């Protein structure tokens, strides 16, 4: 990178800069590359997540209006093995209950979409765990990782490896990585309610990423990442149905039925800027997403982090999200589709969302305790594009987290 303090850059350097992308290292400061932590540490979080009750105006009257409540426990251990290796192990346990969207039906009078919810409350538990080994070899950091996730009707194993290289100027870091996951879905059987549900099926994913991190000045650093991800196998929701009023529709035309592959293209850009006036850090993250289901999304996350010299810290952030719809999505159907693809899932519908987060923490000696809260609201009016029909299943939620960290 040219040592040029003027606000000009050669076209060649600009082209190289935009052509190279980087991986972030989550729990490292932006310049602390190539070395383990100085001490082991343990972190724990307990979170409670509650989705808002489905509003009466969106409810068909069938099923339970109460949506998901989830309790989550997380733990993480970072252990520096020696001067060149560090092991990180983390695990999470979730206990969830509540009803979920089943299908959408048009109102008999107005034709407006109304959500049909699952009946009996769903109770489930999920456990996941992963381990990552960071190996430091001069300017290189090699990080293999493995993990698994298991719940009553879904199991996943995954692994990957990433490599980071710090250039001689110690202001530029190049990163690349690849990972894969192998999932098995085995939905619970309910022949009386849904006799056409599959018994079991598989899904695979391969993801690769490259990127670059660059120190701009003593107060500013940026990072850019390009990701390519491919899913194949059973990608539908085995529990969801769709409303299809076409007289020619068969049972298959009334099931959530998505393509059996999906390719995702993602670009993310991150900025960290120190504001001396406030003695705080400004965080800005942007992500552009596109897939071959024709979904495009923009995510912008802006935050303000202040850590005082007296042990307390305060963080505030806002997140904006907007997505377009999958090209086979519809709240309900009046005609059979030639490709046989259907979904009324709100997660494939057009909408936008805003999220507000705040966190307070206090550090006393080697302990840090924290309390954070997040409120997420979604609505068609938040979308960047005009949306004619909002999916009645859109959800809002509130999340509270209590945390503790200890450095040995």
């Amino acid at each position, binding site marked *: 990178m040219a040592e040029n303090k003027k606000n000009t850059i050669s076209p060649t350097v600009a082209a190289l800069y935009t052509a190279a992308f980087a991986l972030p290292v989550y729990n490292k400061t932006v310049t602390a590359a190539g070395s383990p932590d100085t001490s082991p540490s343990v972190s724990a979080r307990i979170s409670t997540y509650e989705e808002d009750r489905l509003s009466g105006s969106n409810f068909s009257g069938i099923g339970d209006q109460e949506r998901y409540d989830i309790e989550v426990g997380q733990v993480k251990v970072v252990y520096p093995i020696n001067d060149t290796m560090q092991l990180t192990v983390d695990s999470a346990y979730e206990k969830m209950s509540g009803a979920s969207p089943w299908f959408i039906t048009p109102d008999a009078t107005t034709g407006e979409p109304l959500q049909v919810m699952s009946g009996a409350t769903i109770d489930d538990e999920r456990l*996941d765990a992963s381990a990552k080994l960071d190996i430091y070899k001069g300017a290189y950091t090699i990080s293999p990782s493995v993990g698994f996730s298991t719940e009553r009707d879904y199991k996943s194993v995954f692994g990957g490896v990433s490599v980071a290289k710090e250039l001689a100027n110690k202001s530029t870091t190049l990163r690349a990585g690849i990972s894969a996951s192998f999932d098995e879905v085995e939905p619970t059987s309910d022949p009386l309610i849904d006799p056409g549900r599959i018994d079991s099926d598989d899904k695979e994913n391969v*993801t690769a990423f490259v990127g670059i991190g660059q120190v701009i000045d003593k107060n500013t650093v940026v990072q850019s990442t390009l990701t390519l991800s491919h899913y194949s196998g059973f990608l539908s929701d085995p529990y969801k149905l769709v409303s299809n009023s076409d007289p020619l529709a068969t049972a298959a035309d009334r099931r959530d039925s998505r393509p059996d592959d999906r390719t995702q293209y993602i670009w993310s850009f991150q900025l960290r800027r120190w504001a001396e006036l406030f003695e705080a850090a400004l965080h800005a993250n942007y992500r552009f997403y596109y897939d071959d289901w024709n979904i495009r999304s923009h995510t912008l996350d802006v935050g303000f982090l202040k850590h005082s010299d007296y042990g307390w810290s305060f963080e505030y952030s806002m997140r904006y999200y907007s997505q377009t719809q999958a090209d086979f999505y519809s709240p309900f159907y009046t005609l059979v589709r030639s490709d046989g693809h259907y979904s009324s899932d709100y997660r494939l519908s057009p909408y936008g969302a805003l999220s507000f987060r705040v966190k307070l923490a206090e550090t006393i000696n080697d302990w840090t305790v924290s309390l954070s809260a997040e409120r997420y609201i979604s609505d068609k009016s938040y979308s960047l594009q005009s949306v004619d029909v909002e999916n009645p299943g859109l959800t809002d939620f509130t999340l509270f987290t209590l*945390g503790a960290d200890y450095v040995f």
Partner: protein
Amino acid sequence: MKPITLLLIALALGSASGCTTVKPWERGTLSKKEMSWSPDPLAAKLGEHIYFAKEAAAGGYGSAGGGCGCN
């Protein structure tokens, strides 16, 4: 290319156009915890899991992970 995409690329280029050489003794600010890519990795992982279960888009920040029945 959409205008917003051009704007974001221009921002990325603009941020790079004033690169300076930072001496080792000037890196104290960059080493602050609040300047890290993810000051709270557990919170970031939970957040990504929740958004994965709620939204069509996922990933893009360079970490490996498995799936769940939530999406």
